[in-house]
C-alpha cells in the first residue's frame, strides 16, 4: 500500500523531512507507540499467557553530565572568529593588520582591545603552535597595544 510518506508538502519546497506510516525510524516508532495508545485491564494478564516484554529503554536523558559535556565540547569546537561570526573576523584581522601598520582609527582600536582581551590567551597559544613565524609580529602588535 502506498502511504503518502514521500509526498511533499504543497509547493514542493522540501523544507520538511517526512516519515511515518511504516517508514519511520526505530527511534521514532519507539517514541510513538511506547506508553501511548489504549490500555485495557485485560492486558494486565499478559504475563499469564507467558509472554514477556523485552524492555526497550526509550527514556531520554534530558539533562545530565554527559549532555552538558557534549554541548560544552560542541561549543568549544566553534571558532567565533573563524567564519560566520558577526563582524568579529573583520575586527580580529584589523587587530593584526592595524597593529602592524599603526593606521587604525580610535573607534576600531577600542573594539580591537575589547575583542583582544576577551579572546587573547587561547588564540595566542594556538598561533604559537601553528604559525611560529608570525610570532614576532604578533608580539609587536601586543606591545603597541600596551
Amino acid at each position, binding site marked *: *500500500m502506498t*502511504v*503518502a510518506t514521500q509526498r511533499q508538502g504543497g*509547493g514542493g519546497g522540501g523544507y520538511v523531512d517526512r516519515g511515518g*506510516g511504516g517508514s519511520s525510524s526505530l527511534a521514532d516508532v519507539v517514541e510513538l507507540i511506547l506508553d501511548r495508545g489504549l490500555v485495557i485491564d485485560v492486558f494486565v494478564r*499478559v504475563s499469564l499467557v507467558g*509472554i514477556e*516484554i523485552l524492555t526497550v529503554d526509550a527514556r531520554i536523558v534530558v539533562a545530565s553530565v554527559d549532555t552538558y559535556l557534549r554541548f560544552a565540547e560542541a*561549543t568549544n569546537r566553534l571558532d567565533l572568529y573563524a567564519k560566520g*561570526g558577526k563582524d568579529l573576523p573583520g575586527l580580529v584581522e584589523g587587530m593584526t593588520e592595524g597593529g602592524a601598520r599603526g593606521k587604525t582609527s580610535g573607534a576600531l582600536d577600542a573594539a580591537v582591545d575589547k575583542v583582544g582581551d576577551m579572546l587573547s590567551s587561547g588564540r595566542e597559544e594556538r598561533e604559537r603552535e601553528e604559525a611560529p613565524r608570525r610570532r614576532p609580529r604578533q608580539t609587536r602588535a601586543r606591545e603597541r597595544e600596551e
Partner: protein
Amino acid sequence: MTAVYVYGLVGADAQLPEDLTGLGPSGKVSTVVHGDVAAIIGDVPPDRPLGTRDDLLAHEAVVDTVAVRTAVLPMRFPAVVEEDGVVDELLAPHHDRFVAALSELAGRVQYTLKGRYEQDVVLREVLQENPEVQQLQAEIRDLPEDATYHQRLRLGELVVGDLEERRDAEAEQLVQQLEPFAVGVVVHNPGQPDDVVNAAFLVEQERAQEFEDAVEQQGERLHGRARLRLLGPLAPYDFVPGDEEQ
C-alpha cells in the same frame, strides 16, 4: 490456550488494507468483529519474548497503514490476550466506549512534528549573544580537558539552558502557527536540548493538505537554523479518548 496479538480497534464495517504484515510467524492480520466494533488481531510468536525492533516496527506499520484508511484506536504496545478474551474481555465489556471513541476519531489522523536545530548555527548564536558562555568558552577552550572539567560542565549547563529557552519560544511559535489547522494538539517535552519541538496534531483528513502546507511554510521559515520532520498521517496515538482515566 492461544495468545492473540491485538494491534488496535476499528469500526465493524472497516476494510483492512490487504498487504498488512503482522509480527507473528504467519504475518497474517485479520479482524474479530463484535457488534459495531472490531479488533485488528494477529498471531503471536510462541517461542520468544515480544519487544524486538521488528515487533515494534510491525505494530506501527499495521496501525498506521490502517489509520490512513479508517479511524483506528491503537493499542498500547504490546497487547496480548487469550483468543477467547478478544470478544469476552476486550470488545464486549467496552463496546460502547470503543464505538464512541472511534466516532470521535472518524476522519481524523495524527501528525507528529519534530525538529532539530542545526547545531553549529544555533550554538554560534548562543556564543555570540550570551556573554557568560562567550567568556567561559574563551577561558577554557584551549586548555586541557582534565584541567577544566568543572568549567566545561558549567559551560555545557549554560549552553543547554540557553538552548532550552530558545527552543521553548520556538516551539510555542510553531504550535501557534499550526494549531488553527488542527482539532487537537499535544505538546511533548523535546528529548534533547537541541530538539526544537515534539508535538502531536490531530488533523481532519480533509484539511491534511492544508496542514502539511502550513508545516512546509514553517520549515521554510526555519530553514538554515532548524530542520523540521513531520511524521504522518499516523494513528491517533496521542489522542486516544479516555486514555487519561487509566
